[in-house]
């Protein structure tokens, strides 16, 4: 084989006590598309950020054309010819789409002035190449996730990069858009670009890539030509164990309807969403990123107001946009982003655990240390939170243990309806199984669980019923017996009606 274009050798990276990458290797060749697969939390995104120059590796080397490469910032990576499409779009909402694409590299005319006309034309050309007609003049604010992703893709393509890194670029795109993206990626690849493609969709991986590198728990597992692998083999290596053990779902008989959502609408986010969750039932809300799942759960919990429809908890209507009333009625929401929305990172484990029910623990409005300590200790033990001391700030815990603290915090309120948004994102495999066991136990105890999840195996393994959303609408309600990868994905990409 010729010398690789880009090589990562023995790369390690830790954040505090958490080792995100350990001794990872990767070789990218010019004119080849290379897939990087692994579960959430396997370290793929950290690897991308190292390639992008956002994080420096603690150990190991990166080399380009056989020469060592020092990346001290994103500008270095860009100068070295590495373009990155991040999983989360990174746009400037106040600036126009065209400016977003060319920021820092705007075409210039005399006197080094920004040439707005040329910038607009070139942006339009890029979109034409991608086969979309986005308006280059509109501000990026208010673009749908899919359109934001398209702007990111246009930005990366405009760099004429030697290495193109795509971190789940298709998560929010529809079938036709994915096809177009692949056509562009193939033509770049054939022109000599090295493509690194990260995706959870195996059909895409096998359609685009020649070689597949598998990662697990921050470590390199294997690199093989795509032709020698099967989907089952890839999954087995990713998970490192039999999948069924991951999802200890207990069989339950659903009781009375507890959470009834009817005609719920928030303009621009979701429309006419109607469903019911019964006591003892785990209902999964599946769909692509940006389909409106998190928005629905936020509206049910009252974080956002809804424009139409209603939410009933055990037959009683919840007031619109009133989180405190929702908590009082017995609703709990474990949010998607635990660092931003789920925890107060600077506060101690015990403080975080008791936040929602601090008033019921308080006497005469004052919290005495003992009350908080013992309440927190009970929950820490039940969920097996591994923390040094309960007085340590929650930021010192690993992702999995942080998630347990968020769960403890809401379980302590003894909810009747629990909404969990991506309950196992970015936590290790062991903790994942514990979280699943916990959810299953809760359902068995009669709690109604609504689980938003992007991980198909989790959805299929845990849910009694799968609701699927596509572009803000519920497109399918599939019982456990009939739910499989295909039926859910078809509904999620909006093809269920046609099929």
């Amino acid at each position, binding site marked *: 084989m010729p010398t690789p274009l880009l090589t990562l050798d023995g790369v390690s990276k830790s954040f505090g006590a958490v080792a995100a990458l350990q001794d990872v290797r990767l070789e990218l060749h010019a004119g080849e598309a290379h897939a990087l697969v692994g579960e959430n939390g396997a370290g793929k995104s950290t690897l991308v950020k190292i390639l*992008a*120059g*956002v994080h420096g590796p603690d150990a190991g080397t990166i080399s380009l054309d056989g020469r060592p490469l020092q990346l001290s*910032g*994103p*500008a*270095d*990576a*860009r100068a070295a010819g590495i373009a990155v499409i*991040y999983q989360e779009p*990174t*746009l*400037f*909402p*106040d*600036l*126009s789409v065209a*400016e977003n694409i060319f*920021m*820092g590299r*705007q075409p*210039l005319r005399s*006197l*080094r*002035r*920004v040439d707005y006309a040329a910038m607009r034309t070139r942006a339009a050309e890029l979109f034409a190449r991608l*086969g*979309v*007609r*986005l*308006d280059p*003049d*509109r*501000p990026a*604010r*208010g*673009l*749908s996730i*899919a*359109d934001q992703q398209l702007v990111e893709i246009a930005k990366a393509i405009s760099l004429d990069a030697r290495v193109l890194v795509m971190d789940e670029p298709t998560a929010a795109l*529809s079938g*036709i*858009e994915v096809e177009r993206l692949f056509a562009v990626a193939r033509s770049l690849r054939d022109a000599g670009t090295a493509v690194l493609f990260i995706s959870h969709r195996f059909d895409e991986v096998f359609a685009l890539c020649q070689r597949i590198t598998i990662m697990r728990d921050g470590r390199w597992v294997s690199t093989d030509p795509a032709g020698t692998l099967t989907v089952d083999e890839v999954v087995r290596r990713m998970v490192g164990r039999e999948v069924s053990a991951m999802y200890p779902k207990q069989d339950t008989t659903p009781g009375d309807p507890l959470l009834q959502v009817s005609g719920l609408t928030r*303009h*621009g986010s979701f429309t006419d969403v109607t469903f019911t969750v019964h006591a003892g039932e785990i209902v999964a809300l599946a769909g692509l990123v940006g389909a409106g799942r998190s928005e629905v759960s936020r509206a049910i919990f009252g974080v956002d107001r809804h424009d139409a429809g209603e939410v009933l908890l055990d037959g009683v209507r919840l007031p619109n946009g009133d989180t405190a009333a929702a908590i009082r009625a017995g609703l709990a929401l474990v949010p998607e982003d635990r660092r931003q929305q789920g925890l107060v990172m600077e506060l101690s484990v015990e403080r975080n655990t008791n936040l929602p029910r601090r008033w019921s623990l308080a006497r005469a409005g004052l919290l005495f240390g003992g009350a908080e300590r013992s309440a927190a200790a009970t929950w820490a033990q039940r969920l097996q939170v591994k923390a040094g001391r309960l007085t340590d700030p929650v930021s010192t815990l690993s992702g999995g243990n942080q998630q347990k603290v968020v769960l403890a915090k809401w379980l302590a309120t003894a909810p009747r309806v629990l909404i969990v948004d991506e309950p196992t994102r970015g936590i290790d495999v062991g903790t994942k199984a514990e979280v699943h066991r916990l959810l299953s136990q809760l359902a068995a105890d009669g709690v109604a669980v609504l689980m938003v999840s992007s991980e198909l195996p989790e959805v299929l393994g845990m849910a009694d019923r799968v609701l699927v959303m596509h*572009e803000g609408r519920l497109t399918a309600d599939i019982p456990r017996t009939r739910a499989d990868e295909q039926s859910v994905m078809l509904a999620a990409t909006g093809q269920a009606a046609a099929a």
Partner: protein
Amino acid sequence: MTALDTAPAETATTGGARLARRAFAVRELGIALALVLLVVVTTVVNPRFLSAQNLKDLLLGSTILAILAVGQAVVVITRNVDLSVGSVLGLSAFATGAVFVAVPGLPIPLMLVIGAALGAVLGAVNGGLIAAARVPALVVTLGTLYVFRGLDYMWATGRQINAADMPAAFLRMGTATVLGVPVLALFAAAVLVAVGYVLRNHRSGRELYAIGSDPAAARLSGIPSGRRVFYAFVTSGALAGLAGVLHAARFGTLDANAGLGTELNVVAAVVVGGVAIFGGSGSVYGAALGAVLLTTIRAALPVLGINPFWQDAAVGALILAAIGLDRALSARVARSLRERKAHV
């Protein structure tokens, strides 16, 4: 979703872009209209409000605030704030007097350069502290507000420099006019056009907007955020230093209290002028208009027979109205952008 299923529309601009552009235009247009309305009403009450002399006084009065507002706008656009501008102005003004006392024959242009340079150094202290210590600008410049003022007091030690200590030509510059327009206002106009030009047409200017719009995305895009923000503070400092020299020329009498408390007036002018306090949008033209509007209000309220005790409240109400309008507008734009199809 995709454009394929709709017929290709060959329109140059879409509703979304037009709407956004109109909203941006409205911001500056709205201030200009408010200004016109205020002048008309006041003139109806007292026709002398529109006399040549009074107009000249208004322009002169706006000049220094407008220059400070332009510098402040550059900083605010990057999602920062510079509270030390009043103290920088004070130091620079006193330095002007002290330099003229020491070197009576110093050419005036050189004095302007010295003042701007002094301000730039003080701005570099702000920018350096913010970049090095990673402390929010609000805290750093709150600190330097007192530090710079303290240096001013130590230097002045209760002295006062009078008009007699400064060259006559320099003092004439403070009140002279060219074709009826005060020279100081021409300075402000030149500064405004130059800074506005860079912000609109230069890559570094566009990057300031990017940094304010989303600092994390700016870092990921390889924008040298630290350096850009540093230079934004140097600019703000240099303009405050220049304003200090002009202050000396206009008022003639200098002590250590020059520009005391001006910083809040400046921030008010910037906010009233439609520069988003969280960065990323707005223009220096709006900020300058905001300065003129604030000055005009202060001049108009006594003419309108409003109790002087109410004047601060009136200015405050204006700020709240401007912010309210801003929020309402941006909420409306965001909503229609959300509902509108992005594809042409």
